[in-house]
């Protein structure tokens, strides 16, 4: 494809020697084509136990009622909507990576988009279960769809942000699913071609008769681009609408025009953190260091830093506006985040999301895998607390002081949340067993232009400006998957 040589000063997107198309296929399909390892079994057991806990906790809630959660007359939403927004936010990275980065031709996305998209889908599934589970009468959930009916044409309330949410989430889920699956087709065909017996049949059906002809590839590229075009506004719209669940209310702490951009930035922030959390492990466990390189890790850290800083600015803006508006209730709400009974939640939110991520200004931090991993977890803890603070701390003390109350979670609240993480990881672990966790077809595109060996060849050709060569070699020092000794004599 890219027949010309890529500039030497760009860092390689694939490292390692002797990377061939076959090696990529072998490396990526290793977990799909072999029996799972012990580590996978351990992870899967833990995750599916979590999923069982979720099934139990949600069934318990359905059986006895929402009263089994810690909600009360004042705090009508707490861990449920916190969990919902948290999961939707996490789901944002996938679309951003697959759609926006594709449009901007950011080729480094090719190694991470598959997992990120899968993650999106699983996160949206977790989020959607929260929507249904938090309803008082989930068996009447169908009322929230604008279906023709016999009630004298009774429609949904198009004024309600919750209805917008229904549309937003369902659109998002279906588009993400289609996008993800379309991308999977060539890779599924690869598995099919290498498989035998029943697996071959299954993958044959799943790959929709992919032939790999030029025409097919051309259509594939076109569809990808169109889907990217459709998905791009969704990246912005979904969390904008989720933020309107709050912003269109009267509640001090919710009723804020800054919410849409603030929420979108926060969503990308937490989404990238989750991608980071997962990929740092996947990379190690599945031995994919050559495809998910330090460059990827650092790039994601940079996005986390950027979005984290946007979120930080949003926080400051909120406080400023609360002060500047002179609104009594607004002021109290923001003061209450630090001085009220939930001050610790406020500290977790601001500390984790703003203070901790500012460490990413340091390259040493950005390129340190253990620190990056810990920070990615910290970010998601912080983002969970952000939603908790916005929802619970605002609700628990609003206009009428007589109704001020505290929210205490029950063990069911806790089980649903932990269980939803279990569901997520169960799905993710199943995913890496049956689908290639890296988009092989797209990574292969980069071998001839952006891989370390292609660059090495370029260096070896000797036609490179020495200062550029030095720059390149300098850049390679951060990579943990590059043998620097190879470059000593070059």
């Amino acid at each position, binding site marked *: 494809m890219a027949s010309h040589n890529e500039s030497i000063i760009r860092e390689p997107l694939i490292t390692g020697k002797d990377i061939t198309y076959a090696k990529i296929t072998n490396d990526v399909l290793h977990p799909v084509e072999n029996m799972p390892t012990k580590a996978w079994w351990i992870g899967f057991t833990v995750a599916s136990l979590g999923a069982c806990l979720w099934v139990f906790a949600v069934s318990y809630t359905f059986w*006895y*009622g*929402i*009263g089994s959660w*810690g*909600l*009360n*007359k*004042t705090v*009508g*939403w707490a861990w449920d909507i916190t969990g919902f927004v948290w999961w939707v936010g996490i789901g944002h990275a996938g679309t951003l990576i697959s759609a926006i980065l594709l449009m901007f031709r950011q080729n480094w996305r090719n190694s991470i988009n598959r997992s990120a998209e899968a993650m999106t889908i699983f996160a949206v599934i977790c989020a959607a279960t929260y929507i249904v589970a*938090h*309803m*008082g*009468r*989930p068996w*009447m*959930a169908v*009322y*929230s769809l604008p279906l023709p009916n016999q009630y004298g044409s*009774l*429609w*949904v*309330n198009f*004024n*309600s*942000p*919750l*209805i917008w949410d*229904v549309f937003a989430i369902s659109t998002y889920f279906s588009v993400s699913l289609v996008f993800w699956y379309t991308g999977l087709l060539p890779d599924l065909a690869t598995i099919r071609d290498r498989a035998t017996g029943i697996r071959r049949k299954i993958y044959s059906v799943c790959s929709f008769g992919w032939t790999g002809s030029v025409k097919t590839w051309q259509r594939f590229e076109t569809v990808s681009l169109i889907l990217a075009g459709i998905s791009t506004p969704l990246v912005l719209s979904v969390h904008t609408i989720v933020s309107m*669940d709050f912003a*269109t*209310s*009267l*509640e001090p702490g919710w009723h804020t025009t800054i919410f849409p951009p603030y929420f979108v930035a926060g969503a990308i922030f937490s989404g990238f953190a989750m991608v980071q959390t997962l990929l740092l492990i996947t990379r190690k466990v599945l031995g994919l260091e050559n495809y998910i390189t330090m460059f990827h890790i650092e790039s994601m850290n940079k996005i986390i830093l950027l979005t984290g800083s946007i979120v930080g600015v949003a926080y400051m803006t909120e406080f400023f506006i609360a002060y500047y508006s002179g609104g*009594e*209730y607004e002021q*109290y709400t923001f003061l209450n985040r630090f*001085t009220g009974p939930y001050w610790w939640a406020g500290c977790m939110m601001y500390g984790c999301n703003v203070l901790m991520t500012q460490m990413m200004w340091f390259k040493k931090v950005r390129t340190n895998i253990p620190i990056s991993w810990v920070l990615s977890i910290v970010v998601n803890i912080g983002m969970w607390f952000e939603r908790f603070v916005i929802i619970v701390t605002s*609700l628990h*003390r*609003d*206009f*009428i*002081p*007589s*109704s*001020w*109350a*505290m929210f205490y979670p029950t063990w069911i609240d806790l089980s649903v949340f932990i269980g939803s993480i279990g569901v997520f990881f169960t799905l993710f672990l199943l995913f890496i067993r049956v689908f290639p966790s890296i988009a092989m077809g797209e990574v292969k595109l980069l071998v001839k232009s952006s891989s370390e060996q292609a660059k090495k060849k370029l260096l070896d050709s000797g036609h490179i400006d020495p200062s550029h060569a030095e720059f390149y070699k300098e850049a390679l020092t951060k990579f943990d998957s590059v043998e620097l000794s190879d470059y000593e004599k070059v």
Partner: protein
Amino acid sequence: MDSNKKYWKGLEELNNDPEFVEKNKHEFAEPIPIEEILSGGGLMAKTPRRDFLKALGFGVGAVTLAACQKVPVHKSIPYLIKPEEITPGIANYYTSTYDGHAILVKTREGRPIKVEGNPNDLLSKGGLSAQAQASVLDLYDVNRLKNPILNGGDASWNEIDAFVKKELDAIKGGGKLIRIVSSTIHSPSALAVIADFIAQYPTAKHIDYDAISYTGIIQANQNSFGKAVLPHYRFDKADIIVSFGADFLGTWISPVEFTNQYVQNRNNKSLQSKKMSRHIQFESGMSLAGSNADVRIPIKPSEEGVALVTLYNQIAGTTLPGSKKLNNVTADKALTIAAKELLAAKGKALVISGSNDVAIQVLVNAINSLLGSYGSTIDLDNHSNQFAGNDHDFVELISEMDKGEVDAVLFLNANPVYDYHSSSAVKDALKKVRLRLSFSDHNDETASLCNVIAPNHYYLESWGDDQVLEGYYTVVQPTINPVYDTRQAEQSLLVWSDNAVKEYYTYVRNNWDKSLLAKGGLSGQKGWETLLQTGFVKVADKAAGTYTFSRDLNGVAQTILNQSSQMEASGDKLEVQLYQTVAIRDGKRANNPWLQEMPDPVSKVTWDNFAAMSPTDMKKLGHVQGDVITIEANGYSIALPILSQPGQAQGTTSIALGYGRTQSGPVGDGVGKNAFPFHSFRNGTFQTTAVATFSKTGDNIILAQTQTHHSFEGRNVIRETTFKEYLKDPSSNSGGSIKHKKYDDLFWQDYELEKKPYNWVMAIDLNACTGCGACVVACSAENNIPVVGRDEVRRRREMHWIRIDRYYSFNDEGKEVTEEQEISTLKDLEHVSVVYQPMLCQHCDHAPCETVCPVLATVHSSEGLNHMAYNRCIGTRYCANNCPYKVRRFNWFNYWNDSRFDNYLINEHTHLVLNPDVTTRFRGVMEKCSMCIQRIQAGKLKAKMEKRPVKDGDIKVACQQTCPANAIVFGNKNDPNSEVSKALNSERTYYVLEELGVQPGIGYQVKVRNISEFEA
């Protein structure tokens, strides 16, 4: 007989044509098209195999499914002969009497479902207490005795009668004593029955025993004026009221009546005529009356006597021997001002004391005599019959029983084993009594020690009468056939005394025919029928005489001062003040879940009693709220959680009576601890204070409070002013709400409510509302509001559609302090102002709940109401989150069908109390105040049938109807002459959170405090 008649089925047969003959050869006249139907193959067949299988499959499936469900058999038994007066769906109202108040009982299809005040009731003009409202539920209490009990086993009434008569005759023959112990009876007919009984059994005597006794006042009036009566107090005639620990708005003597009187000098009408009474309260614990006082001074129980002596000295200008100065500077100062003001308002002043001590009440009489209260604010001639208990008589009875002189005790509405201070004394004494009989309809603490229980009818099943005020005769009539096999106590007494009149109904009739009807200018059957419709007869009041106190006070003062020093707690002891709560009172209705769940007006605690302590004391002793302490006095100890009560006098604790029942039923048993044993008997009366030691237990429990934040944070949801400011500018501090301009709104559909015939709104006068909470229970009864129990209240999930918010504010050197942060730094937490604010759905015209509901389950009506369609609700709870008033209530569980909520309202019979006009709500749906939409509909229907528009006052919502203070006015805003329009036009009107632009439909009137002289 032969006949040649020929029968034929058709012309074909008659004519016998060949075609017919041919056809008739076969079994079926025409060929059955089996072949045709089954012919052909595959899809070409007439009836393809698939169609056949489809039909078969569907048929079998449908039949199987239909057969799966065992169809429940609901037996509905129609009236064989429909009673003329009962139309299904139409309520009937019957006059009756509750505790002396004329009431109306609403019945549907023959079952009482609600008690409402008789609008013509002399005492409270239609207002009723929470207890009265809740009383209807007790009718259906499954824990009532279902039949009489003889020696612990079920018995028939004949067996009981035979046994009791045999016993009584034997006792009569043996000359042993017979005693009837009852709480005060104010029914003329019942008293006559007892008199007849005593005539039959001359050794019998009737003893009035009240758990909450007013013997002190009665005795004091005997001492002072020779009239052993409870006077009729007239708070409506008092310009200045000084109360020493008498909670006359909550529990003292006749609180509903007093509320009605009290508010007449404080409501909008009074304010507009530039008149407002002043109320000064000296008390230990924060009572309902104290919380409404303009000035409230905390004093210890031991200081009350000294304070009264001081007040007397100030007013009389003398010094009683032994007088000493109060150790309480604020109280001392307040007493001086109070004395000055009382004297200035001579003839329109009233001093009362909640003490049951004769000496104190004599001194109070002396003060009132000096102030010229007799004949104006105190009426001794048209006296009250509400309480006649004589403590001494009961104590003497116990010693008689102990000595074995008494062979028969009959308990009528009395439960001394629970509420006498020495339960063991009663128990021991009872062991020596041969015939122990209780008329209780529960197997209560006393009844369970009796060998005969002859369960009484409930008042809603009874005939009777009442005379709670001299000359005010009310009638009691049954509204339902007895639910269980019970018999009216009076009837039993008639039977046992072989009375000539066999039926108590006849007895009552005779009694009325003989004398009472004539008093109301009625006579005969017609008169009786008129009485049953009006409910009462009133004899013109006698002129209230003036009485002058002329006895020597030196001895009295000495007694008081001696007692005061005895009561003084030294060291680390606490002075205990015992009081009744508005909901539970003396504990007789402890098994009523509505009352248990009704938040105490002041503490907002449900389902428990507690030890109220001053926050200052708690800090000093290192206690936090909920710490369980053991309190010991009179050799009795109980462990109670502490409640932090601003305004509680330091060094004291207040404990509610009426809790800790052990045999009231599953609802009331074990709720709280019994504090009656802290009572003591001194100088001929029960004393309601004690000196106690206390110790930590180390436990901490969470009290089930419906409100846990107690200050209004300086927010303008509460607006109050002083009377002085009000006189200068009536719109003082109201924000001039009614002058606000309304802006057109781009986003809101214009309902054009002002062009519609009706726009239902409400006005609530914060200056009239005393916070008594009767509306909360009335609303529960009217709207089938579930009871959720202590644990759910702890989780802040009570379901009440109307709540009374109670806020404390403090005074720091003239500055009002309302914010949590500042309050925590204050030293003086005793001088606290209280404000009550009833809060319910505001029916906003731009309702924030409506816009956020995804499924249009809550929508606006063309009459300005905010509707809730339960069937459409999917329970996202966004409406509740977005409600700035937090008045929406969510059904967290299926409160109507969940075993965890058994014993509250889902017993075998309790669902009979449900209002059939209001659906019960399933779990997962939101609910809230509907402004009694069923009443609005009923009112509109009635008007329509009478071909007229709805008149103002036709429709009364439940909370408004029961409010003894008339603080709530409901009506049509589009009628400029309606009460509510007038009320909302008051300069004091403001709307809570109006700045949010939600356009609430309920206007509040600013609270006014009459404190001018105390401000400095």
